[in-house]
Structure formats: structure tokens, C-alpha cells
């Protein structure tokens, strides 16, 4: 088969998979809405039974498609199975009128992502892993919020930032473990590592959030400390094991390891330094020099991190990572624009900022699109060469 035909066929397969995945998500959304409606006419046991059978049906059909060489469509149905399994848990909770507290929802999500993660490994399904990691992100955030709610502790953005940093370290370790074994999940974990790093840097880029990283009089409750210690141990062990495995197989350079460790220490330093501007209010007009310096530094860092992630994505020929970085770049522009509009308030100020901002966004948007296309082309060029994906 000619190379062009091969590429065309791959694109068709990929397009079919995207359509099937959207279909799966739509079905799950429809069922979720039916659950939310909570049909009184239908006995609870029947509702649970229908959902459990639908979960089994989705998984079975997914496997049948996979065994008949429709790998991607099968993968989409496994995604549907994962979503239906999650919905089954929430339906059971609804049926038994379980608590709606953050902790109760966090517990339900914990049951969901653990089951889906297990299914991802047994089926070697990257798309299921994506669902598990998305639910994990919601779970870990909710778990922290629930500790704050449950034990009436102070909410600290700094702790949330540390949690995302720890998860990023763990995911980097998992990336290396899978890369050393040439496992396809390496790409998924790499993408999510980049996501957590970008998310963390985005949080640090807000002038109003920096003084809230460590609220005045903040005290760490024992349960949050215990939670942090446990996830830190898991993440550090994963990172050490992953780095050793990858380095021993010559799949990771010392330069990248030093860069990774340097970045982790930089984030720890930045999050810790925010305690110096603890409790400052950015809404009262006067902003201290320290806050200004920190905010400017964090925003320059955010741009540098975005560029580094683009470089990282280009190096590993991952168009998805490049796109992710560009999405965060767009988010950065929009966020800062809204921030400037708020800072230079008033009707005339708003009008002038809107016009200037609009022009910048149109030109910027054109530039980003051009930049994105060029990067994607470069990435594709590299992919078409016979390099290893990792």
C-alpha cells in the first residue's frame, strides 16, 4: 500500500474512533440525565439492573469489536462501559439516598476510577485510562475539598497546588515506567503529566490567588498532612523507580532528569515563597512590590512552561501535547485579558481595553493558528520518519 493511502486509511480509522467515542459519551450523558430525572415509575432495583446490564453489554460489545479487528470502535465501547460503570455507582448511591457531601461523592469517584484503571490495564485500553485519569483528577481535588469541609480546616490554594505537583511527579514516574517497557500507556501518562504541570502553573499565574496560597493563620490539619504524606510517598517511589527503569534502558537522558528535578524544586520554592505575601488583598488597590514581582515571575514562568511543553511534545512527536500547551496559551491570554479589563475598570476603560484586546486576540489567534499548524507539520514530518514513538 502506498504511504499516502496508508495515512488516509489511518485518518479514516481515527475519524471513526472519534465519532464512536462521541457516540459513547452521548449515550452515557443520556443515561446520566435519565438517572438525574430519577423516574419514580421505575423501581430502583430495575434501574440498577438495567445500568449494570448496560455496563456489561458495552464491555462485551467492545471486546467483540476488538476481536473482530475493529480495535478503535471497540475502544470507544470500552469507554462507554467505563462511564456506565461510574453511573451505576452514582445510581446505587441515589437509590439508597446516600449522603451528598463532598466526602461521599469522593468515595463514589474512588470506587469508579479504581475499577476503570484496573479495566484499562486488563484490556490495554488507552481510552479507558484517560477516563480513569480524568475521574482521578476530580477525585483528588474533591478529596482535598472534603477534608477542608469535614474538619473545618482552612482552605489553602497552596495545598491544592502541592497536591497537583505530587500527582504530576507520580505521573512522570508512571510515564517512565511504561516508556521503559515500551508500553502504549506511556503516551497517556506523558500527556497527563504535562496537563498537571500546566494546570499547576496556571493556578500560580493568578494575582488574586497568590496571597491565598497560604491564608493568614493557616494550620495544616492532621488528616490533610497524612493524606499528603501518603500520596507523596507513592509519587516519589513511582518517580524513582520510573527514572531508574528508563535510564537503565537508555530511554531517558540525564539532562531530562535534571530538568524534571529542577522544575519540581522550582515549584516547591515558588509555592513556599508565596507565604511571604500571605493574606494580602489585591482588591483594595495597593499591591505590594513582593506580590508584583512574584506575579510577574509566575507569568513569565507560565509562558516558559508552555514553550517547554510544546518542545516536549515535539520531541516525543505528540501532537496532543502540543495542542494541550496551545490551549493553555489561549487560556492564559483570555485570563490575563479579563484581568486587565477588571484592573482598568470603568466604562471608557472597558471600551478601550475591549477594542485593544480584541485586536490583540484576533492577531494573536491568527499567529497561534499559524504557529500550531507549523508545529503540527513538523511533528508529522518527524513521525513519518522511522523513529521510535518514545
Amino acid at each position: 500500500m502506498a504511504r499516502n493511502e496508508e495515512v488516509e486509511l489511518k485518518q479514516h480509522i481515527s475519524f471513526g474512533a472519534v465519532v464512536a467515542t462521541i457516540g459513547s459519551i452521548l449515550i452515557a450523558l443520556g443515561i446520566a440525565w435519565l438517572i438525574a430525572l430519577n423516574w419514580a415509575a421505575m423501581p430502583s432495583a430495575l434501574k440498577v439492573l438495567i445500568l449494570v446490564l448496560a455496563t456489561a453489554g458495552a464491555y462485551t460489545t467492545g471486546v467483540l469489536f476488538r476481536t473482530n479487528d475493529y480495535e478503535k470502535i471497540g475502544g470507544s465501547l470500552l469507554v462507554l462501559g467505563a462511564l456506565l460503570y461510574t453511573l451505576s455507582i452514582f445510581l446505587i448511591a441515589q437509590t439508597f439516598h446516600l449522603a451528598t457531601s463532598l466526602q461521599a461523592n469522593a468515595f463514589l469517584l474512588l470506587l469508579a476510577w479504581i475499577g476503570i484503571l484496573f479495566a484499562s490495564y486488563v484490556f490495554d485500553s488507552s481510552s479507558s485510562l484517560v477516563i480513569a485519569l480524568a475521574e482521578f483528577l476530580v477525585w483528588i481535588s474533591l478529596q482535598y475539598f472534603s477534608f477542608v469541609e469535614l474538619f473545618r480546616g482552612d482552605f489553602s490554594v497552596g495545598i491544592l497546588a502541592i497536591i497537583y505537583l505530587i500527582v504530576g511527579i507520580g505521573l512522570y514516574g508512571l510515564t517512565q515506567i511504561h516508556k521503559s517497557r515500551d508500553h502504549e500507556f506511556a503516551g497517556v501518562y506523558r500527556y497527563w503529566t504535562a496537563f498537571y504541570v500546566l494546570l499547576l502553573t496556571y493556578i500560580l499565574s493568578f494575582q488574586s490567588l497568590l496571597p491565598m496560597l497560604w491564608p493568614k493563620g493557616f494550620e495544616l490539619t492532621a488528616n490533610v498532612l497524612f493524606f499528603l504524606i501518603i500520596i507523596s510517598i507513592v509519587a516519589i517511589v513511582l518517580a524513582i523507580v520510573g527514572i531508574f527503569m528508563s535510564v537503565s534502558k537508555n530511554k531517558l537522558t540525564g539532562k531530562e532528569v535534571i530538568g524534571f528535578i529542577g522544575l519540581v524544586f522550582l515549584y516547591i520554592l515558588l509555592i513556599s515563597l508565596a507565604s511571604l505575601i500571605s493574606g494580602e488583598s489585591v482588591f483594595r488597590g495597593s499591591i505590594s512590590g513582593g506580590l508584583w514581582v512574584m506575579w510577574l515571575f509566575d507569568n513569565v514562568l507560565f509562558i516558559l512552561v508552555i514553550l517547554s511543553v510544546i518542545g516536549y511534545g515535539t520531541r516525543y512527536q505528540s501532537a496532543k501535547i502540543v495542542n494541550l500547551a496551545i490551549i493553555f496559551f489561549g487560556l492564559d491570554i483570555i485570563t490575563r485579558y479579563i484581568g486587565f479589563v477588571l484592573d482598568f475598570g470603568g466604562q471608557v476603560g472597558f471600551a478601550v481595553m475591549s477594542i485593544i484586546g480584541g485586536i490583540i486576540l484576533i492577531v494573536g489567534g491568527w499567529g497561534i493558528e499559524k504557529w500550531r499548524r507549523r508545529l503540527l507539520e513538523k511533528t508529522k514530518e518527524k513521525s513519518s520518519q522511522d523513529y521510535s514513538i518514545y
Partner: protein
Amino acid sequence: MESKSKNKEYLKLAIILGVLFLILGGFLLYVSIPLLSTKTAVLATQPVDPFDLIRGQYIVIRYEIASIPSIEGAEVGDNVYVSLMEDANGTAGYKTASLDKPSKDDLFVRGQIKSVYGNDMRVEYGIEQYFFERGAKFETRGMEVKVKLSGNGGARIVELLQDGEPVKITYENKTPTS
């Protein structure tokens, strides 16, 4: 795909369905343990109604035993065992509270301390919500809740009561597209 690989895939499917059903089944068993008990109590309430995007529409039920006298040494997050005493109408009310589990013969419910203010503390029992279909209408004044209590004080709602009878819920007439 070769038949050997196909068999392997089917085996994987069986393992996954087994594990997922085990989790779901275990969860079902865990939440239904109190319902298997023979201990029942009727609790007085003061309800309000919100909507949960994930779980649907429900009423938040505030029980009269939600606010009880504080116990020495009790802290937010601690489990507390509230012993109940039935009045002449069969409605269970606060008798005593302890951080230690009472004897199995006692009628008690387990809760978690949410806040302590002076001599009082607010306790939640995990039964503060009752889900129903959207568009449901029923009288919430003077409502009572019939609950089942497990051996360790875990509670599950059985039904809502009004004047000792199950609450009559009516639903708005809906078209298939409403």
C-alpha cells in the same frame, strides 16, 4: 484475530466483569446492611429542597436530633452514638449521646460531629437526603422519616411518613419531551 487471542480477550472480559461486579456488589451490600436489620426508628424532621447535578433532585432533611448537647472530649469529625427514646406516638428522640458504642439491645444511631458550638454540637447521620423524581409534589411540614438501623448504628431511609402514613407523592403530568 486468531482464536487463541480471541479466547484471551474473552477471558479478560470475564475477569473485568467479575471485578467490576464485585465492586458494585460489595458497594450494594455495604449500603444495604442497615436495611437488613429489624431495628426501626421514626425520626422527626425540618426539610428544605435543593438539586444535585450528578444525582438528581432531593430534599435535604434536617432532623431534630441533628443538634444535640455536646459531649466532653468530642471533636469535629468524631463518630458519635446517639441513643434514642420513643415517645407515645412512636417517634424517636434524643436520649443520650456517647463516643462509645452502646449495647446492641439499645436503639441508637451513629453520626458524625460536624461542628461544636458551646454546649451544643451539630451531627449528621448520612440520611440527610431523600431523592425523588423532578416535578414531585408532597407536603413536607410535620414530616417524619422511617429509618432502619444496623447493629453498629448505621442508618438507611425506608420511607417518608406523614401522620404515621407513607407520604403521598404526586408528579406533574409530563409529555415525553418535557
